[in-house]
């Protein structure tokens, strides 16, 4: 906090003293309180990325290096060309702090915000995905409260707007108990022409600026600076800074905006999110190389007596700014009238490169359009935490219970169990595009109507692995989420990320961020996956318990499937088919569910990633798919490959007869083999007649493929070939454990 004396008043701002000096030096005159407030918001971490920018440079320039990328980082959403004249837009961002204070509206407005980001690329939002993180549910009413109302907030908002929630992910870990993570992702679809119509820039002097949608109130003022501070007990007092969502208005905004874009007269479009009008106007004009003259009195306000500072910084939801060609002004306004959307022409674009805001005859803001979006960069220190070396050395305690019991426990553990309780509350069918539905696959699969193309999308993070080794953890997570779309038959096309970390002013937290970005950037470059957008959420710490969250670089991968017959699903299909394990298992129990659920430890060696090995497996899959050799596929994730096999048995109530003696067991213990979460492995079901063909393709790419057993009619998983024990698991019992965990905690 810095105290600034201005207009005979003393104001408290979140800007640093250096930043205040920088502003005073670079402006012709000292800023007014409104102007300073605008800087305060726009230069907050949330809007300016001032701490993260130096590291985010590591991501390649996607627009330059990939010909199918139409919009890359720095825009409201990434956009790619998927062929047949269609553009796909997608983005992921966080709404952590608001959700930790007020879970229902925090999550709902998170959805509202991400929908606006997609909409302002000129395309229709067609799917939502939500990676969520909470404290453990067991005996924890606070976590249960956050979990219940975050899910309800997402459901109520997404369902009402008619955008299906087609996927997501949940992780439960103590480190998220007070600072839960609510990341929200949205995918949009439109024609390439639609996308080109509506840039988020104002290029043409003379165009009108229209504000459309909800009214401007006092809610959410300083929501941004609030998101860039760590949570304290006083944060409860910040509750008015959490905005209130209105999904009904949002639905009308979507329809009115898309109809307006179709007229061809909309030449610039920007949503009002963090930073409100200040952010929207400065980005439209600053990035467009223009200026604007805005009349504040034209803005429809919700309550009387709002001062310029409040109007410029309000983060009231459900507002969009349109830049419209004067020739089409009446046509565009008549569309807003049809939808009964409140709207006002609030000003015009000019060539002054200055943003001027008038309150009647008073000029209250006069700033170079670019000044607000050009914050100074903060170079942060990074330092590997001193506790890590010891943590990595932590040994797996001796197992004192039978392996069978371990597997049953894992099946019903919070991070592995079925998430049906959540996705039943989400309308995942609306839009008539959902082909692979929630719970039926590793990724959601949507059809592109009128084509034979399908989009697979998945989100995820693994905070436990990143906590031990952020470089490999972030890579392994990429391998896992790409694995999800590959398991459905898709080719990964592009990635967006959402980096959730602690306080960047602490060198240890910044080190986690820096290492994760390095890991992701290296892997994406190697495997040719463009990074088309990102969001950074710092200050995810809980000052009450003095702990930071586990580092969580969440990502979304979007992939393409060319043809209905190429979609692969998860469940085992036929008894008698082979079960193949793709990829080697290493003794890598660090950060595994086995360690946390059975032994209650965090440490150990976590999975490492060899980029070349992963690349070879992905290439092999392309060839297996081209030859239709895979009947079912599920990538190995939390809990290890036996859990993967069990999940494949559930739907059709089949079983598996496994003989693990085909694996080299000399260098690995039983628990390491069964429960390691080594990256990039898959379980596939294949026809036994195809075995030789499959092996010759595997050998060509030098991929380790093991035939570990067969699908059986009997709903039991029998594991032979281990040194001492035979394991005999009842699939029906596992299924019951898998589906009952969350309802048991959440239902009275």
């Amino acid at each position, binding site marked *: 906090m810095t105290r600034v004396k201005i207009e005979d008043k003393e104001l408290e701002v979140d800007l640093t003293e250096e930043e205040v000096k920088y502003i005073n030096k670079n402006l012709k005159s000292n800023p007014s309180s409104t102007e300073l407030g605008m800087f305060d918001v726009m230069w907050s971490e949330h809007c300016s990325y001032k701490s993260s920018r130096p590291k985010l440079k590591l991501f390649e320039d996607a627009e330059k290096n990939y010909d199918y990328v139409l919009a890359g980082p720095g825009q409201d959403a990434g956009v790619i060309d998927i062929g047949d004249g269609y553009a796909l837009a997608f983005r992921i961002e966080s709404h952590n702090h608001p959700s930790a204070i007020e879970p229902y509206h925090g999550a709902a407005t998170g959805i509202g915000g991400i929908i606006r980001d997609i909409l302002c690329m000129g395309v229709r939002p067609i799917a939502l995905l939500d990676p969520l993180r909470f404290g453990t549910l067991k005996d924890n009413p606070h976590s249960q409260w956050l979990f219940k109302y975050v899910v309800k907030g997402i459901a109520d908002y997404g*369902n*009402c707007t008619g955008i299906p929630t087609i996927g997501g992910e949940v992780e439960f870990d103590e480190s998220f108990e007070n600072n839960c993570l609510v990341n929200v992702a949205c995918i949009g679809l439109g024609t390439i022409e639609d996308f080109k119509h509506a840039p988020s820039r104002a290029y043409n002097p003379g165009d009108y600026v229209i504000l459309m949608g909800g009214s401007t109130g006092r809610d959410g003022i300083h929501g941004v600076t609030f998101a860039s501070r760590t949570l304290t007990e006083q944060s409860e007092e910040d509750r008015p800074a959490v905005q209130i969502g209105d*999904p009904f208005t949002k639905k009308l905004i979507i329809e009115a905006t898309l109809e307006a874009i179709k007229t061809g007269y909309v030449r610039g479009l920007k949503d009002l999110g963090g930073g409100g009008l200040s952010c929207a106007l400065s980005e439209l004009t600053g990035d467009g190389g223009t200026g604007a003259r805005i009349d504040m009195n034209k803005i429809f306000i919700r309550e009387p007596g709002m001062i310029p500072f409040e109007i410029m910084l309000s983060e009231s939801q459900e507002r969009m700014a349109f830049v419209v060609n004067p020739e089409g002004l009446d046509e565009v306004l008549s569309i807003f009238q049809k939808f009964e959307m409140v709207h006002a022409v609030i000003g015009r674009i000019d060539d002054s490169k200055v943003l001027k805001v008038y309150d009647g005859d008073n000029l209250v803001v006069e700033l170079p359009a670019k000044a607000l979006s050009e914050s100074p960069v903060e170079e942060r220190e990074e330092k590997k935490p001193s506790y890590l070396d010891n943590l990595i050395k932590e040994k797996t305690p001796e197992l004192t219970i039978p392996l069978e019991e371990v597997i049953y426990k894992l099946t019903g553990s919070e991070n592995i169990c079925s998430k049906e309780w959540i996705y*039943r*509350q989400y309308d995942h069918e609306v839009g008539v595009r959902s082909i692979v539905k929630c719970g039926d696959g590793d990724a959601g699969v949507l059809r592109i109507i009128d084509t034979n193309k399908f989009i697979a999308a998945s989100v995820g993070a693994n905070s436990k692995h990143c906590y031990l080794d952020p470089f490999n953890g972030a890579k392994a997570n990429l391998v896992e989420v790409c694995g999800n779309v590959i398991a459905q038959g898709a080719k990964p096309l592009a990635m967006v990320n959402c980096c959730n970390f602690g306080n960047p002013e602490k060198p240890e937290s910044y080190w986690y961020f820096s290492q994760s970005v390095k890991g992701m950037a290296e892997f994406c470059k190697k495997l040719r996956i463009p990074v088309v957008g990102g969001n950074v959420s710092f200050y995810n710490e809980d000052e009450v318990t003095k702990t930071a969250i586990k580092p969580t670089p969440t990502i979304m991968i979007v992939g393409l499937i060319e043809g209905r017959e190429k979609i692969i699903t998860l469940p085992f299909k036929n008894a008698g088919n082979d079960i193949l394990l793709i990829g080697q298992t290493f003794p890598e129990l660090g950060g595994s569910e086995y360690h946390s659920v059975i032994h209650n430890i965090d440490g150990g060696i976590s999975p490492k990633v060899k980029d070349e090995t992963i690349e070879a497996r992905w290439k092999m899959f392309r060839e297996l798919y081209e030859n239709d050799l895979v009947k079912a596929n599920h990538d190995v994730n939390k809990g290890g490959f036996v859990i993967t096999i069990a999940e494949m048995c559930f739907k059709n109530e089949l079983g598996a007869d496994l003989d693990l003696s085909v694996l080299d067991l000399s260098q690995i213990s039983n628990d390491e083999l069964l429960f390691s979460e080594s990256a990039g492995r898959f379980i596939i079901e294949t026809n036994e007649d195809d075995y030789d063909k499959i092996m010759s393709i595997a050998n060509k790419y030098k991929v380790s493929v093991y035939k570990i057993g067969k699908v059986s009619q009997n709903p039991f998983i029998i594991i032979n070939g281990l040194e001492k024990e035979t394991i005999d698991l009842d699939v029906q019992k596992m299924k019951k454990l898998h589906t009952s965990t969350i309802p048991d905690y959440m239902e009275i």
Partner: protein
Amino acid sequence: MTIKVAVIQFPGSNCDLDTIHVLNNVMNLEANLIWHNDFKGDKYDVAVLPGGFSFGDYLRSGIIAAHSPALDEAREMLRDDKPIIGICNGFQILTEAQLLPGALLQNDSLKFICKWIKIKVENNSTAFTNKMENGFIIDIPIAHGEGRYFTDKAEELEENDQIVFRYVDEKGNPTIDGNPNGSLDNIAGVCDLEQKCLGLMPHPERASEQILSPYHTDHGRLFFESMIDFINRRS
């Protein structure tokens, strides 16, 4: 003759485009999306009230839309023997407008439910079920928070053949297990006395293409095939 179908778009409708897609691309009809204030019933042979959250479901699901001029037009159409179907929110609107009996209350789980379920045909003589067999089991998804059907005139409905669908379990029986939302007597859909106005909570437009169904069925088509047949026979 070409059948003229209107899909009425209320503010907040969100299954409107899905319904248009099925009518036009799957059933090869010529359906139009009509803004509720602009809808004129005399230009159409049939009207569809699609699912969604008309007026945000504020106040009570369907109640605000029930006062739209479009519902006066719908009443007029029924007087002219033209059929009307309300799906999900459309059903809620039709009950609020008292074109159909009963009410849709909050699900007994107090939660929104999105799920493929099964319903049984109880009356195949309506304008939208005449291509179905009585007792036929339909695979179809629901997606609603307020779908628990209630009426204090259940016996009367039964006597008048107004119960068109019941929720059933895997074996085809109207049990508690098969009832996803606590509806009275497992009622999933009802019609008016003349059997030309149908309302149901499940979504036929989401069940009209094999690719969308976990069972590779397209039972939703039967609703629209029945509708086409009804209109063709009448003219």
